[in-house]
């Protein structure tokens, strides 16, 4: 921080210096400003990388890549994910109860649906361009990138809490709204609007009422109804242990991502890998534009950017296995879990936060 302060002070002046055998160089306030910004991004990234959350993920990833026998029992992983969904939904509801409802809530939900439905088209074109992947698999992957990863969202909220940055509580509801539209876009990309997509009423029900969405939205409404008094009653359960539980969950996610990387590396070429890095950045830009248009706070902007940048690995893979069984699950699961999720967790979120702060003045 001392370095940054120093840079700020110096940036008011123009310094001149000369290398022994070189022409005169000028360091303008502009360059100092950029240096300070870069240092800030770097400091934020290092700070994020050294957090228990990311280090837990790294431990799981390393253990898995080293073929350790460390595993999480299925029931434990399920219980932890239920806890996290309940806690994040509840806290979002309390925040809405505290700050009230305004028209931005409805517009944010609409923006989430539009983003979720639009991003698969961008992802589809980018993936075909970078890797030349066939239409079926490209559409299946694209569906994942329009939908969201709730764990990435939780990690972003945790970063905001750690920095004392507030956000709109209803972003939890936006996350839920962004789960499903991307699946329809992906199926449309396969059938090109022709009748015959494999969406039946049972699949609709499974997508819209999948356990994650029901719990997230349900807890959101409980938090909204009970407000701060409700939070005080269960505070010791859903606030204090939250980060510790998140660390455990991300340890498991690291194991899962590592397994995905090991098993799926043959399924991905350099073009697909590049897509797994570039697409979240492009998605985050779409999210940022929407956040600025809606006038969201810095925290809200980060969360919408993160949602737009993340790729699903829970709801969409299950839907794709039913609706597009010919698509190769190794491709979309490896990209989503093995490439984009680690990228967002380690580099993406600090990058999006810096951009969000710069663009919203937060």
């Amino acid at each position: 921080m001392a370095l940054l302060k120093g840079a700020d002070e110096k940036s008011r002046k123009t310094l001149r210096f000369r290398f022994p055998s070189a022409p005169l160089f000028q360091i303008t306030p502009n360059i100092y400003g950029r240096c300070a910004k870069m240092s800030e991004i770097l400091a934020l990234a290092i700070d994020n990388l050294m957090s228990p959350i990311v280090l837990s993920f790294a431990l799981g990833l390393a253990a898995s890549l080293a073929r350790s026998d460390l595993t999480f029992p299925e029931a434990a992983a399920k219980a932890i994910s239920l806890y996290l969904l309940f806690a994040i939904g509840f806290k979002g509801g309390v925040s809405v109860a505290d700050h009230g409802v305004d028209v931005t809530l409805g517009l944010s939900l609409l923006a989430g649906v539009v983003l979720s439905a639009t991003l698969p088209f961008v992802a589809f074109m980018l993936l075909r361009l970078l890797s030349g992947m066939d239409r079926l698999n490209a559409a299946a992957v694209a569906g994942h990138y329009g939908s969201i990863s709730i764990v990435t969202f939780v990690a972003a909220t945790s970063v905001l809490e750690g920095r004392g940055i507030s956000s709109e509580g209803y972003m939890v509801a936006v996350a839920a709204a962004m789960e499903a539209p991307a699946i329809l876009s992906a199926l449309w990309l396969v059938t090109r609007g022709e009748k015959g997509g494999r969406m039946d009423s049972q699949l609709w029900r499974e997508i819209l009422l999948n356990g994650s969405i029901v719990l997230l939205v349900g807890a959101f409404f409980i938090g909204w109804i009970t407000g701060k008094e409700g939070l005080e009653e269960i505070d010791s359960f859903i606030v204090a242990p939250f980060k510790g539980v998140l660390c455990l969950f991300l340890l498991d996610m690291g194991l899962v991502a590592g397994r995905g990387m090991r098993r799926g590396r043959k399924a991905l070429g350099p073009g697909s890998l590049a897509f797994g890095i570039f697409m979240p950045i492009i998605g985050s830009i779409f999210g940022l534009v929407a956040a600025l248009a809606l006038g969201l706070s810095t925290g809200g902007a980060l969360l919408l950017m993160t949602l737009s940048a993340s790729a699903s690995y829970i709801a969409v893979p299950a839907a794709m296995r039913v609706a597009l069984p010919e698509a190769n699950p190794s491709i979309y699961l490896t990209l989503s879990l093995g490439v984009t999720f680690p990228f967002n967790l380690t580099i993406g979120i600090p990058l999006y936060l810096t951009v969000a702060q710069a663009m919203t003045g937060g």
Partner: protein
Amino acid sequence: MQTHDAKRVEITIERAMQSRLTNALQEAGVTGYTILPVYGGSGRSGEWERSGDVTRGSGMVQVVCMIRPERLDELLDAAFAVVENHIGVVSVVDCQVLRAERF
């Protein structure tokens, strides 16, 4: 002890397809079956493991049913309509059961 001929059908299928398969079996009049969790495995689509599986799109289950030999084709037609395009294995083995009236 008196035993009777029967067919044991084992269908290992993606977890996402489980309810569709059991619905199809019930519509075909096959009301008795057992669903078993499958720990892990490897096949044409690569390795998979139940432990720590968060994706819901990659796990497998096994649906086992025992049926009278004359009803086998009906069951297989119903099951095949569901599993045709999906990852999985369908196998049929001869077996003996004690209480024939239950199948």
